[in-house]
């Protein structure tokens, strides 16, 4: 395999830049070997070819000063870099860059927990701090604060928040719970946002906005800077926690359960983001497809029904929790019971009866911020499972849920894939995650998955739905669907890009934001 190089850069220029970078971080922290070292920076779940996203090198700085020096070098040579923090963005591209040849700027070694404030419930962390790291730290020190983690806990606060990720406690909207950040701009300027920018500030992780424009969001899902530190709010350990699950028998119950949830969510009767999870997602935690169906294509209804019965699962499975003092939980649970018991066949499950079930156990952990990796078990549904997530947003509205579900399921079946999905009901919206699972060793299946995804983006756009986040391969296509008023939003992104990063060195193409010289060429 020939060395992938950044577009327009000769091997001589590349080697010269790498030699300078080695001077900054030391040779042990520059990774160049394609067969060994750079395999850490591939997306094992991509639906095209490894080569499309193969980096030319990776560099792991330890300090802000080193980042500044690296940026000066890559600006000189006009070499694109791709910033990652914990680098586990699987389903959306993993640690791999948008295009072959970029140099990955891997911040995993910047992994200090700078501060934890128990009284005010926050932590300030560097990009390499994983969910496990902070959880273990809190446990060791006996600090009674919870983290909120994504389902795979090897990811981290800065990376996940940068990509607008979500978790399962009441603090599950990660960007909402972010407060204050430090960012290095392309020219090396270090900026602190919000209150941190006033002299001797002690309130950077307490109040988000400071004075002037609130710009934190600009550095997320974008390529305007390198985030080097972030404040995150942590939930005080509540006096009590009652997780529950409701199994629902019919496909159409999705509509009812969503509509019944919205007022409970808006009024904070349910404290976290409830999940309505389809049968296959739940079943895949304990069984594989071939145990119930050895044919090709999506699993037939009769096999699904048998599996649901065997595993005591619903066609939809609804998870949520209430938190707080016992009388409050009792009160809320009564309202919740009364509300959902109106759905014929709805069955409540609690720890007493459900403990030991793999799906229940890991969701209960996630709803109290206990890090784990159990959700990866899902990938055994098919042999050699890989997946990319198609993740459109809708209103938390029954009809919208059904429309999206039916649209995606129909298309998935047309392309011979199972529908494996869940709806996460946020404050007013829903994240719908369709886990498009394929055999990652099977080139034909990958191609089919790729084609299906592209069709889904267009189908969703035609119905007025946009995605909250996406895989490297589809960033441009989805950016094109955010095109109201003659692409005014992307024109704004591009104006900012040109101003903040005129050489276009920072993560070119992240979410469809390209520097001037590459615009329209991808």
């Amino acid at each position, binding site marked *: 395999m020939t060395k992938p190089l950044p577009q327009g850069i000769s091997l001589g220029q590349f080697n010269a830049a790498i030699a300078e970078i080695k001077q900054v971080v030391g040779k042990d922290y520059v990774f160049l070997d394609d067969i060994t070292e750079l395999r850490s920076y591939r997306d094992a779940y991509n639906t095209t070819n490894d080569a499309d996203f193969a980096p030319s090198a990776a560099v792991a700085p330890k300090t802000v000063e080193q980042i500044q020096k690296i940026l000066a070098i890559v600006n000189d040579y006009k070499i694109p870099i791709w910033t990652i923090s914990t680098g586990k963005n699987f389903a959306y591209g993993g640690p791999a860059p948008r295009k072959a040849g970029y140099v990955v700027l891997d911040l995993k070694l910047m992994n200090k927990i700078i501060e934890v404030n128990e009284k005010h419930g926050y932590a300030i962390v560097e990009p390499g701090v994983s969910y496990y790291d902070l959880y273990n730290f809190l446990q060791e020190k006996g600090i009674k604060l919870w983290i909120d983690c994504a389902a795979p806990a*090897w990811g981290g606060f800065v990376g996940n928040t940068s990509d607008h990720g979500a978790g399962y406690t009441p603090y599950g909207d990660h960007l909402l719970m972010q407060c204050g950040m430090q960012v290095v701009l392309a020219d090396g300027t270090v900026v602190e946002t919000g209150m941190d920018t006033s002299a001797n500030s002690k309130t950077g992780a307490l109040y988000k906005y400071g004075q002037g424009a609130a710009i934190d969001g600009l550095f997320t899902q974008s390529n305007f800077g390198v985030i080097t530190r972030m404040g995150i709010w942590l939930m005080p350990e509540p006096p009590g926690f009652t997780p529950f699950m409701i199994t629902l028998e019919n496909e159409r119950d999705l509509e009812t359960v969503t509509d019944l949830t919205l007022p409970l969510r808006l009024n904070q009767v349910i404290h976290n983001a409830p999940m309505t999870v389809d049968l296959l997602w739940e079943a895949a935690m304990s069984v594989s497809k071939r145990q119930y169906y050895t044919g090709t294509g999506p699993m037939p209804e009769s096999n699904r029904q048998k599996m649901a019965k065997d595993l005591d699962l619903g066609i939809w499975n609804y998870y949520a929790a209430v938190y707080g003092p016992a009388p409050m939980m009792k009160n809320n649970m009564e309202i919740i019971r009364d509300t959902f018991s109106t759905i014929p066949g709805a069955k409540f499950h609690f720890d007493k009866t459900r403990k030991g079930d793999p799906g229940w*156990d890991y969701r209960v952990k996630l709803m109290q911020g206990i*890090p784990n990796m159990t959700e990866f078990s899902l990938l055994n549904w098919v*042999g050699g499972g890989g997946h990319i997530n198609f993740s459109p947003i809708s209103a938390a509205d029954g009809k919208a849920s059904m429309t999206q579900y039916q649209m995606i399921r129909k298309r998935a079946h047309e392309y011979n894939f199972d529908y494996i999905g869940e709806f996460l009901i946020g404050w007013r919206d829903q994240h719908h995650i369709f886990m498009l699972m394929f055999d990652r060793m099977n080139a034909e299946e990958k191609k089919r998955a790729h084609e299906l995804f592209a069709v889904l983006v267009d189908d969703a756009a035609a119905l007025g739905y946009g995605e909250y986040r996406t895989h490297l391969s589809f960033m441009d296509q989805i950016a094109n669907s955010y095109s109201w008023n003659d692409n005014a939003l992307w024109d704004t992104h591009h104006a900012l890009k040109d101003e903040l990063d005129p050489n276009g060195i920072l993560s070119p193409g992240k979410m469809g934001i390209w520097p001037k010289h590459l615009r329209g060429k991808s």
Partner: protein
Amino acid sequence: MLSRRTFIKSALVANAALLTNPSQALQLVLDNAQGQPLLTLADEKSPAAKQFITHVSDDNSSLGLDIGVQFERVKQFCSESPNGLISGLSRDSDFFVIEQLAKDYGFYPSYSANHIQQGNNLSHEVSASQQSADLIAHALAQAGEQWPVWLAHNTQLLPQGHQPMVASKSQIQSTHAAQDFLVSWSLSAAKNT
């Protein structure tokens, strides 16, 4: 045909000494007898993985549903045993996660094989170096239903270099029908090769 002796040329078999931590339900074999530390992980549910692990050692514990439970141990092993070998017979997802984790410590796969049983049809899809892929696929088929035992005996003899991998497949008819998908694998440090 791949005989044990073929591999003995490139590595020595060592008797495994077992260290387990029951609270973590991990099958852990640490073997320093011949100078190469070995960490072996096996799925707790699959009968083939159980067969495998009992032949790596006498004790029996295993990988549960949450692979995250093993992270600290794998990281510690990688840091403390740069010349070590991590091997396993596990669900595919566990291999995927361990592989990603170990890469951060410079450990990369030098061998992996999918063992797929569809009814009575048992196939072994091996990825290994050019010199060994065919041999291993053949040996696994020759071992018949005892393939996990063959693997257990040969774990440390599987290739440990980091040359480009090629694929080789073998297939046999099994006497019992099942639906199963397991992956055997070994990871070693690149700097070691």
